[in-house]
């Protein structure tokens, strides 16, 4: 096993552990913040500003640093802020990033809604470590549940401040005034003042009061509406600049010499020929070898001219035998944090009427974001600025400071709106590579990973083995549930079904391939195993799979999504030749999903086609139904890949299918008819929506295949080579 990863794993429990399988977190950044109040107004001009303070524990853990602020200027735990300029322009700041999930739009909606201004007057500044408050990262479906309420409270406080200013001006009680449409109005006299005129000539700053009531979802006017994506025109004209599109003056292109296999060490090295090439800068630092040159072609030519011999240390396993390897290498004692027990499982299993055990496996898969990892680094003296597509700008700042041995206060990380991530862009690899080269070259350097690098040197959704033992009573009620996940992770591991005797356990296995977050994390693996197993139990009990689930469910929100999906799908469906119908459900991160799938089988070729998916989703009050629909349908389509055919293959420490021609992702002809049924619960605070809708896709399809063929598929992907290959 690779040494660095083992150290990483040992250190892990000391960190703020948000998700146990976030293997890619390697260090706690030291958080500095250097934008003092005086500078804030210098930067943005006069006006009115409000700063949010994260007090509740979950939000504080994610959005507030523990130290490093200037306490005389700003409180130590600011999570968001907002500025209203003398022209009435509203700028809201938060450290989250836009990666296609549409939060630049939904967060601006929230601010506009609460501040009572037109949507168009709000601009979001996001993901810039010099301008935005500290934020742990954009992951875990946390933006809507944690950032939305904070921005709402900031906007609410700013509105109160504007009302107070107007009240003072008119010498009336603030309670008698109304704020609407970017104006404060006095209904008694009919007078009104625009926010712009109220902000003029002021440098008023206020910290957020501890509690300030915000507008309930039932009274939203701008939020809750299907507002189109901001900056849409820039995206359809090619004007938006993603990180790979940036070209600062004098920039060089950087390329990294990759080892032939994971864990290989450089033993012979000669760069004299490469160094003699015109305009080329070579950096060697341990096993890190890279070149920068005026063009990408020249940088590649320089790397090719380097004589390097590597000593390989091949992995002890390959994609063919990974599952037995994981099972055999699990650590004997798992962390208590990942273990849950209720009742007496062994006894209940032994004495039950129906007993069903099964083993499920899940392959490594890649995020394959269409924008590969990329960074542009530019030094100005000791100060470093890096533009990079990352979900953790502040984390990357910490990685850069650590690696380059410079103070964090000298590093600025800016995240341009990014060509997707899906959990795959938590680390600062490309940023570090570009910065290291730029320091040597004394010029800006851009590093853009090739697709092959992206498929090889990024990290993967971890593979896993899941063992389930279960028992039901003659009436179809669950009596025992014993669920063990090896390696792939613990999120979504707890069963939502009512069972008197339960044991769930996550078994830690040291890393084989570099692994990390992925949309839905291990919840996809755990739901695949659980919901496939529930289907098998329903079949054993000879009960309809929907009825069987409802019989064992007490959670009203779960029942509601199941019933909504079933109703829109037309469940139960009459048996049809070469057609199958499946259902699955789950809950995670405060939201609920149920998917019904219809598949068609070509008996001759064994090809399986997904014909129709109906996914019901509920995440509390809906902030933007159009953006949410895009996310839910997108998650269903992305889920098709992992369900049907995506799998990373590896052997001798090499990825053997690191190309789109060898790694199949969903394409247009794979896309079924998809219906998203959105349940809007205005009485429940909004939860995130980026991940959960992916979870029920694979088991619903697998269950539909069983329904059509009687063949129970227990491995993800289900049919990489069609049914005949299974």
């Amino acid at each position, binding site marked *: 096993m690779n040494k660095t990863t083992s150290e990483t794993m040992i250190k892990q429990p000391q960190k703020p552990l948000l998700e146990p399988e976030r293997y890619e977190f390697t260090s706690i950044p030291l958080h500095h913040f250097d934008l003092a109040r005086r500078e804030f107004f210098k930067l943005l001009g006069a006006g009115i500003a409000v700063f949010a303070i994260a007090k509740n524990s979950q939000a504080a853990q994610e959005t507030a640093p523990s130290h490093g602020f200037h306490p005389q200027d700003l409180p130590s735990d600011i999570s968001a802020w907002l500025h209203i300029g003398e022209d009435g322009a509203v700028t809201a700041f938060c450290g989250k990033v836009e*990666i*296609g*999930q*549409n939060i630049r739009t939904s967060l601006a909606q929230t601010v506009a809604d609460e501040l009572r201004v037109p949507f168009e007057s709000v601009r979001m500044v996001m993901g810039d470590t010099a301008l935005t408050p500290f934020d742990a990262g954009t992951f875990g479906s946390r933006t809507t549940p944690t950032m939305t309420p904070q921005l709402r409270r900031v906007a609410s406080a700013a509105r109160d401040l504007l009302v107070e200013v107007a009240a003072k001006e008119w010498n009336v009680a603030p309670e008698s005034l109304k704020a609407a449409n970017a104006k404060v109005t006095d209904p008694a006299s009919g007078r009104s003042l625009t926010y712009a005129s109220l902000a003029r000539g002021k440098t008023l700053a206020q910290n957020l009061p501890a509690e300030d009531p915000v507008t309930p979802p039932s009274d939203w006017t701008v939020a809750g509406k299907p507002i*189109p*994506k901001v900056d*849409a*025109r820039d*995206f*359809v*004209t*090619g*004007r*938006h*600049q*993603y990180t*790979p*599109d940036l*070209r600062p003056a004098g920039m060089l*292109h950087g390329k990294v010499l990759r080892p032939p296999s994971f864990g290989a060490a450089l033993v012979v090295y000669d760069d004299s020929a490469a160094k003699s090439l015109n305009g080329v800068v070579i950096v060697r630092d341990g096993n890190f070898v890279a070149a920068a040159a005026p*063009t*990408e*072609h020249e940088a590649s030519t320089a790397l090719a001219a380097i004589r390097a011999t590597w000593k390989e240390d091949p992995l002890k396993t390959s994609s063919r035998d990974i599952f037995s390897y994981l099972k055999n290498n699990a650590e004997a004692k798992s962390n208590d944090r990942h273990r849950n027990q209720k009742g007496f499982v062994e006894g209940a299993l032994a004495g039950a009427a129906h007993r069903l055990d099964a083993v499920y496996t899940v392959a490594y898969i890649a995020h*394959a*974001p*269409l*924008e*590969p990892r990329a960074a542009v680094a530019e030094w100005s003296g000791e100060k470093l600025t890096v533009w990079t597509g990352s979900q953790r700008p502040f984390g990357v700042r910490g990685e850069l400071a650590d690696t380059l041995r410079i103070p964090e206060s000298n590093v600025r990380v800016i995240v341009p*709106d*990014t*060509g*997707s991530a*899906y959990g795959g862009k938590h680390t600062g690899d490309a940023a570090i590579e570009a910065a290291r080269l730029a320091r040597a070259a004394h010029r800006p350097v851009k590093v*853009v990973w*090739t*697709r092959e690098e992206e498929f090889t040197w990024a990290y993967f959704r971890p593979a896993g083995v899941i063992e389930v033992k279960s028992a039901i009573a003659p009436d179809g009620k669950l009596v025992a549930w014993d669920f063990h996940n090896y390696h792939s992770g613990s999120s979504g591991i707890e069963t939502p079904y009512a069972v008197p005797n339960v044991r769930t356990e996550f078994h830690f296995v040291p890393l084989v391939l570099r692994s990390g977050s992925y949309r839905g994390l291990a919840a996809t693996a755990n739901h695949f195993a659980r919901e496939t197993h529930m289907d098998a139990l329903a079949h054993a009990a000879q009960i309809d799979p929907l009825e069987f689930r409802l019989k064992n469910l007490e959670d009203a929100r779960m029942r509601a999504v199941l019933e909504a999906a079933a109703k829109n799908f037309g469940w139960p469906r009459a048996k049809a030749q070469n057609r199958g119908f499946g259902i699955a459900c789950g809950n995670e991160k405060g939201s609920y999903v149920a998917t019904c799938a219809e598949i068609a089988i070509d008996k001759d070729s064994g090809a399986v086609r997904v014909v129709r998916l109906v996914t019901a989703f509920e995440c509390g009050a809906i902030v933007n139904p*159009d953006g949410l629909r*895009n*996310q839910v*349908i*997108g*998650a*269903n*389509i*992305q889920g098709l890949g992992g369900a049907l055919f995506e799998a990373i293959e590896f052997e001798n420490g090499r990825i053997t299918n690191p*190309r*789109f*021609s060898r790694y199949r*992702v*969903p*394409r*247009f*002809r794979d*896309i079924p008819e*998809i219906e998203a049924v959105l349940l809007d619960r205005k009485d429940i605070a909004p939860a995130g929506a980026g991940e959960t809708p992916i979870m029920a896709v694979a088991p619903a399809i697998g269950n539909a295949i069983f329904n059509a063929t009687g063949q129970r598929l227990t491995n993800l992907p289900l049919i990489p080579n069609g049914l005949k290959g299974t």
Partner: protein
Amino acid sequence: MPTPLELEVNGKRYPVHYNPETPLLFVLRDELGLTGSKYGCGEGQCGSCTVLLGGQPRRSCQIPVSAAVGKPVTTIEGLEKDGHLHPVQQAFIDAGAFQCAYCTSGMIMSSVGLLQSNPNPTSADIAQFLQGNICRCGTHPRIVDAVHQAAKAMQERAR
């Protein structure tokens, strides 16, 4: 060896000095600053780099720059005319047919190519034609809708 070549891109002529084997994509992006065409795979598998070459949609990462000499090249930057979006661009906005939007330039260029040869495609025609364009965010149904909307708008305009 770098060679002097002349390209015609979006109606303008550009003298460039490049290795003739260099993929057109890199010349467009690095030399001409037309970064709307994206690198996604370098093997013609994802369609993010699609441009019109002599009016036909082509993967610019697979075209040596020398093969583009003497043929007009249209990139995403060349579709907008006098501040007016091409109907396909407008349809992508109206249908909300993007999430991260990294694939959008390529999707639009391929769709423009499709509608030139097939002004009234069925959903199956669109899926078939765009099979070589990858969208990882899963916006496919809206992209198909956008192409239908654009087809309708272009036919109405032609009338």
